[in-house]
């Protein structure tokens, strides 16, 4: 049994809760190597999306939810993360449009489209110390899990774990995109906030998939 609109809606709700819970932590990460607003920005966006969730039809599809998240993030988050995450969710929505039963393959498609959307807008490469360093291992791990026969929830668990690893792996990097790039060597030893928030969001996706 695949993931449906209820899963996507639960993902949104848990995302909003998780971002609110980690708001200060993300601000602190961003203060160290950015401008200290990442937690504030994402929290504003997910709260706004949550507030609109009531507008969704009861028989909503994952694509509907993802599109709602996309447009809300684009129109409320601002900064770099707003358009980047917004594009990610928008491309993800497009990739799974029409389906209300996402299998492992569809989950990989969804994650790949999200990651490609971020690259399209932000032009970051792996190792640039951005959210891409969480998304790309997540996509790779998801594909590997799918190839190994995992179901959609297990694919998401693999993706979340890889994103967490990818976020941790940004610690020793020098940044080449975003505000942290101005720090040069001084960014070393700090985690990229966008990679950290990516890991939180993918972990939320896995958690709510596992619960059903």
């Amino acid at each position, binding site marked *: 049994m695949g993931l449906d609109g209820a899963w996507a809606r639960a993902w949104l709700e848990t995302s909003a809760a998780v971002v609110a819970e980690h708001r200060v932590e993300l*601000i602190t990460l961003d*203060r160290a190597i*950015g*401008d*200290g*607003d990442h937690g*504030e*920005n994402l929290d*504003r966006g997910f709260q706004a999306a949550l507030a609109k969730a009531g507008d969704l039809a009861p028989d909503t599809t994952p694509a509907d939810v993802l599109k709602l998240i996309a447009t809300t993030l*684009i*129109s*409320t*988050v*601002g*900064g*770099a*993360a*707003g*358009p*980047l995450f917004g594009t990610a969710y928008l491309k993800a929505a497009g990739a799974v449009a029409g389906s209300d039963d996402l299998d492992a393959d569809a989950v990989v498609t969804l994650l790949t489209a999200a990651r490609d959307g971020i690259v399209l*807008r*932000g032009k970051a490469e792996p190792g640039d110390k951005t959210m891409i360093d969480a998304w790309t291992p997540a996509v790779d791990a998801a594909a590997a899990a799918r190839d190994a026969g995992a179901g959609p929830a297990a694919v998401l668990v693999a993706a979340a774990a890889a994103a967490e690893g990818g976020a941790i792996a940004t610690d020793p990097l*020098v*940044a*080449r*995109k*975003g*505000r942290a*790039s*101005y*720090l040069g060597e*001084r960014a070393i030893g700090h985690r990229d906030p966008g990679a950290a928030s990516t890991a939180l969001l993918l972990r939320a996706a896995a958690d709510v998939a596992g619960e059903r």
Partner: protein
Amino acid sequence: MKKLINDPKNVVTEAVAGFAAAHPDLVRVSEDPLFIVRQDAPVAGKVGIVSGGGSGHEPLHGGFVGPGMLHAAVPGPVFTSPTPDPILAATKAVDGGAGVLHIVKNYTGDVLNFETAADLAAADGVEVRSVVVNDDVAVKDSLYTAGRRGVAGTVLVEKIAGAAAERGDSLDQVAAIAERVIGQVRSMGVALTPSVVPHAGEPSFTLEDDEIEIGIGIHGEPGRERIKLEPADAIADRMLEPIVQDLPFASGDKVLLMVNGMGGTPQVELYILFRRAAESLAEQGIDVERSLVGNFTTSLEMQGASITVLKLDDEMAALWDAPVNTAALRWGM
């Protein structure tokens, strides 16, 4: 953190409301989506000019809305780029039929959100051109970074492009003169203290009692080096040297010299820096033809300053001198 604010979440909306109340002759404000627009916008037949970005850099950009300069300003949350919605709405509000120029400071967030807004405006039939200001020479290896940041030079781009729009230039022409200014303007900043973003409540970085940061960005992004405090003349030299070398400026050049306060620095200090910068340029045979000293592109209460030099040609000088009537820059009217 001590600030004269109410709820940190309302800093921008309340400040903009106060701005509208203080300058009813100059501007109108749209509350949702939030933008500041010239009282008489759209100006029929003239190119509209929109700028914007995170708040906390006031008077940039709202203080430069008015005849002869910006047609609209879009303030995001503090230090956070606005979303495409208000940029789009402001773009439509100033479209007088001759198209709209977006003046964007080079930050990933600003570039992306203005890009989306421009796409949406184009889809709605508004012709939009964008220029990206990146005058900060503190960022050396722009291949390995998000590129040079847009800082105080933005004010000069906005003034000169605004004058070009006012005299009736086409969108292509206004964009071209804006690009020419961007090509010839260079800046560099220094911070003595950090600024505190209201919702963060803590300084964005720390400096020891005897330390300063050379090459600071306007959101407190770190610069080239952290050094011990030096006399103002030495600091002015440290800022000016990379500026002059970068363009490079050369003997015989006519320039506009701007010393910009970061928000928390007394005016005497700005004029002490100006004194040395003007002296140093004169020693190099560079002719300071226009000057601007004050708080124009700030970083909340940060103590510090930046130096900006723009190589002038006759047309730019004339456009700089053209009448302007905004809250923060006004002459000839």
